[in-house]
């Protein structure tokens, strides 16, 4: 193979690997926040059922907790977008 | 013999008849009409299509027509050449037959629903007949749901949700009619997508009317305004999830029924499959669609 072809091929492989990385990053990155936020919301449901008069407070706490657990998901999204668009 | 046959007896008779038919006519198809060469009214033909072709013909009739170079494609629509020509002009070669089927089924279904409604209205009385009782029961059930989720003062939404439920339910059940060319409208993706879009558009319109334009736009910028594109994607995904759920279930049921019946030469098995996929899953999916659009609405307008 002449060096020019090798260079183009290497570029293609690198781009493909970047896509693969983006997918795996977002895929596995979505696992943790999904389960965590679900657990939070489940417990919030229980809490609302026990003391419905505190529903507003519980919902607010739930949303704050979920927003924090969400952040790792957003990091994955950012990395995946970077891998897709900047490589 | 007692007046009412038990279900077991009916099933047994059915089974025996099916077995006899299967024994004598396995691998043949029954045709009605008039045969071109002999002029017979009812005749049997050896089946020549493979399963692959059968599936192609059922879910992609236009592709089937193109692949096999059929001379008279309008015969597959069970309609006239003139109408087929109109549809080709409107939708092109690629989806004329599918669109023809869909439009005809929608027309039949709408006429049927209007006629039933007119009939029940004309015959309604204090002492309800059986059919009136069935529809009153469904209406009452949905009315209860609406009052429970939206509140007593928003009772006027019942009509909308009742119509949606009835339409989806009846269109899922059309698969029970063993007439060639008849298929569920919900099997075509356009119908569920249109219904889903309608429901979500209603939700957004009511939300806009209740909260005013400023608060409505602010709702998209939560928690911070950078997230607005993702919030919009989330709203679009509501339409996708609500409509593809219906489409996937009905389409899946249809394909599985087709393939398994083709493998078993259409003996007995289609009945059970139709009972599960059409009657049971069809009803549940119609209810889920109604329930979801109702809940999305209540999320926006109930405080």
């Amino acid at each position: 193979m002449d060096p020019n072809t090798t260079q183009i091929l290497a570029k293609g492989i690198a781009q493909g690997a970047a896509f693969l990385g983006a997918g795996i990053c977002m895929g596995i990155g979505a696992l943790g926040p999904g389960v965590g936020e679900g657990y939070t919301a489940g417990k919030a449901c229980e809490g609302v059922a026990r003391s419905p008069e505190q529903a507003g407070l519980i919902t607010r706490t739930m949303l704050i907790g979920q927003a924090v657990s969400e952040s790792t998901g957003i990091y994955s999204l950012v990395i995946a977008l970077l891998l897709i668009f900047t490589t | 013999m007692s007046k009412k046959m038990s279900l077991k007896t009916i099933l047994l008779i059915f089974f025996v008849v099916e077995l006899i038919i299967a024994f004598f006519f396995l691998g043949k198809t029954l045709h009605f009409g008039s045969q071109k060469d002999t002029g017979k009214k009812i005749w049997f033909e050896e089946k020549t299509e493979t399963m692959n072709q059968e599936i192609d013909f059922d879910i992609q009739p236009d592709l089937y027509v193109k692949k096999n170079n059929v001379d008279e494609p309008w015969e597959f629509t069970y309609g006239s050449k003139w109408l087929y020509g109109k549809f080709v002009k409107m939708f092109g070669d690629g989806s004329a037959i599918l669109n023809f089927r869909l439009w005809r089924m929608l027309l039949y279904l709408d006429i049927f629903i209007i006629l039933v409604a007119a009939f029940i209205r004309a015959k309604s009385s204090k002492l309800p007949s059986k059919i009136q009782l069935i529809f009153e029961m469904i209406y009452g059930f949905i009315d209860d749901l609406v009052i429970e989720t939206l509140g007593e003062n928003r009772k006027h939404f019942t009509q909308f949700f009742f119509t949606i439920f009835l339409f989806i339910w009846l269109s899922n059940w059309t698969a029970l009619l063993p007439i060639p060319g008849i298929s569920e409208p919900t099997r075509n993706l356009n119908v569920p997508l249109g219904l889903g879009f309608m429901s979500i558009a209603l939700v957004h319109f009511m939300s806009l009317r209740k909260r005013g334009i400023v608060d409505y736009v602010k709702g998209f910028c939560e928690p911070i305004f950078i997230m607005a594109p993702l919030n919009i994607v989330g709203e679009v995904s509501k339409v996708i999830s609500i409509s593809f759920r219906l489409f996937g279930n009905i389409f899946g049921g249809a394909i599985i029924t087709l393939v398994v019946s083709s493998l078993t030469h259409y003996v007995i098995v289609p009945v059970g499959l139709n009972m599960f996929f059409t009657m049971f899953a069809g009803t549940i999916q119609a209810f889920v669609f109604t329930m979801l659009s109702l809940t999305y609405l209540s999320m926006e307008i109930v405080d």
Partner: protein
Amino acid sequence: MVLEADILKVFLYTGAALSTGIASLSAGFGEGYAAAHTARSIMRQPNASSVLTRTMLISQAVVESGAIFALVISMLLLFGGFTQGGADWAKAFSLLGAGLAIGLGCTGPNFGSGYSAARAIEGIGRNPSKSGRITANMLIGQAITESGTIFALVVSLLLLYTVPAQMSEPSLAKMIMKACAYITAGIVIGIGTFGPGTGIGYVAGKANISISKHSKDQGVITRTMFLGAAVSESTAIYALVISFLLIFVS
């Protein structure tokens, strides 16, 4: 660089097998969990056995829909006529990706859906008089749990039908890139819906059991469930966005 039909068949058959195989595994778990809790509840409340059995059948039908989607994709892979006309490596990988997407993608939602059904049945066993409310809530919960499966179905259908069979200007480098992008599009939605699926299932399950305990607060519980589930779903939507980008932008 058109593939031979036999090599393409390897991809088609592998995709079809993986899709239905993985999906049935999780659907079996979910339905079995629901059935086990039905048995337990009937043991406690033999009088309510008919309503419990009915709820079990309804919930299992909903859990099953994930496996049905996977079966449809398998059937389309096997009988959809993809071997005719030839296909290149990128299309072959996109077909495998379609199978992986729906197969992996309905795993989490199926577990979650089964969990939600089991909690609903447990609730009905405790409080049979409120079975209508609990069943309605269970259906909503399972429906929103399954949205991950539906995202996966959409991606699978896109990979099957919008990816061209042969590239316009084929080159080896581009082919490798595209092949990676398509199979990753399947994997990302497959793994990405696992977490949200199980999470939303947990929310729905807890909401069901809460309604059986405090049935007069059904409205506020359902609303909290919906809010929590909508937030948990956002990661699945991120995965869907990445998947779309990989299919269309790459």
